[in-house]
């Protein structure tokens, strides 16, 4: 493209600093990490890793947990997001603010919120003790982690759903309704398909975050069997750098694969929301 006002040397000069930072502090270290993880015999090392049932169970649990979190988040956030984006009521802005302010919470704080709700001195436990006669404590387990990732993801996906819903063409729904479609059918056949690219993109990001998340699990309990915790344990307790490197690369490839798949499904750039 010939562009008089933007010669090539300026282009290179403007992109160079960012690219240099990226190459020096991410791409080069990543290449070194891959090399380290091979431990001299790439195939043998990775075969040992991928046939280790403990690591694979951990990976499977991480994938299942992330998938469950993604589906639940999408269902809840779509319901809330549509309400907030399409109805006008007193206090709407306050409700939006309440539902989106946890955006700034890091995973560790989210973990603490789960402890507040479902920990040993948690609200749910206290309520259950009073009404059911039994203290429910589920914060320090997979269920607690599930609640934590929900807490983390819901505000993010609500923001996306609201942004997508505000761009919907209202005349399509009107047409469907005037042709006699029930509200449920309008939602299923008109609204949801229109939201789908945004939902797939948001879901992919939600999945990727849950896969690599570490802070929430770390706060709740160090023995929850998800892959980031396994990597951390290998690295610190066992000082097994090769396995930690290999597992984090496997985790990275699985995550990246899901993002790529989602992008080809939604047709738009998922990375745009990442």
């Amino acid at each position, binding site marked *: 493209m010939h562009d008089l006002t933007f010669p090539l040397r300026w282009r290179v000069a*403007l992109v160079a600093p*960012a690219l240099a930072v*990226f190459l020096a502090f*991410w791409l080069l270290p990543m290449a070194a990490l891959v090399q380290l993880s091979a431990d001299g015999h790439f195939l043998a090392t990775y075969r040992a890793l991928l046939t280790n049932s403990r690591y694979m169970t951990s990976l499977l649990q991480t994938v299942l947990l992330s998938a469950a979190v993604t589906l639940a988040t999408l269902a809840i956030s779509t319901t809330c997001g549509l309400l907030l984006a399409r109805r006008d009521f007193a206090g709407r802005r306050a409700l939006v603010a309440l539902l989106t302010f946890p955006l700034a919470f890091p995973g560790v*704080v989210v973990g603490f919120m789960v402890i507040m709700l479902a920990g040993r001195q948690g609200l749910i436990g206290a309520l259950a003790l009073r009404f059911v006669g039994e203290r429910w404590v589920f914060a320090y387990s997979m269920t607690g982690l599930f609640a934590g990732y929900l807490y983390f993801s819901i505000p993010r996906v609500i923001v996306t759903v609201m942004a997508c819903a505000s761009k919907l063409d209202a005349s399509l729904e009107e047409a469907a309704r005037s042709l006699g479609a029930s509200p449920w059918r309008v939602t299923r056949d008109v609204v949801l398909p229109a939201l789908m690219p945004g939902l797939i993109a948001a879901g992919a990001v939600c999945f990727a975050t849950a896969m690599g998340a570490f802070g929430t699990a770390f706060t709740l309990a160090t023995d929850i069997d998800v892959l980031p915790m396994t990597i951390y344990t290998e690295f610190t307790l066992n000082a097994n750098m090769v396995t930690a490197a290999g597992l984090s690369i496997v985790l990275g490839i699985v995550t*990246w694969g899901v993002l790529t798949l989602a992008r080809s499904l939604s047709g738009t750039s998922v990375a745009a929301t990442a």
Partner: protein
Amino acid sequence: MSALPSRGRDEDRLSTRVEPRAPHRRSALPSARTWIAVAQWLVTLATCAFLVVPVVMSIVAGLTVNYFRGVASGLTLRWLEEVWTQYHASVFLSLEVAAATLAVTLATGVPAGYALARSRTRVSRMIEELLVMPVALPGLASALALLVVYGGYSAFRMSAAFIVVGHVVFTLPFMVRPVAAVCASSDLRTLEEGAASLGASFMQRFFTIVLPNARPGIVAGALAVLTLSIGEFNLTWMLHTPDTKTLPVGLADTYASLRIEVGSAYTILFFIMTMPLLVAMQWFGVATPDVATRRERNAGISHHQDSQ
């Protein structure tokens, strides 16, 4: 609800439109619509409670003398004082790291975002993809990779710069993308050609045309970078040393080892610190699409992701 005439509910749903519909259907439709609306409200309010109740609880817990006995044991600022004397260094370190990260991402990310938006070639598309990789892949992997290569340089390893480097790589796309999106949506090329034909040099154009036009993107990017850097844990936990404990690292320590009142008081400190950022986000419409300008919304600025 069911006693309302159906017109009222229509207005509730589509505030300005009056829709033509055969009268005989009116009796059948409202109940389904009412049920959907009620269910929607229940889910929304339950979600709101799920998000807000623990925050309120932790604020109360941080101000209570003995949380196990409840608020009846009295309110106190003792825990906040204790946390402040013990951990104020982590607050300042986090602010310093966030400021340094912001400075580097502004200096490198803004020019890059502009240049990538102006040159829509395959190479620039590829560079954009590459820059997002550290966000798409688990932070743990990036942190391990940094340790493998730079862990041996102990002066660098022991300094806060090591954490800043990790944060910069992770937050850079959050600066580049909004800037690129805003630059792509405003017709900079025409504006710049006009200025160039009047004799403005490249630097003059960059500072008088490009930067003012990219401002919404820069503001959104800066807020995202600050928020992410202050809350970053995945990388920071692996990169920190006993002398470079940031706020989230200190939080994780407290949660793991100290009583719930202290953890809560520390969390209050975190809330106080991030509050200005949240207000700024609401103010500039970064988090809430309804107040965002159309341009920002199309640019996808409101999309947000960070690592736990």
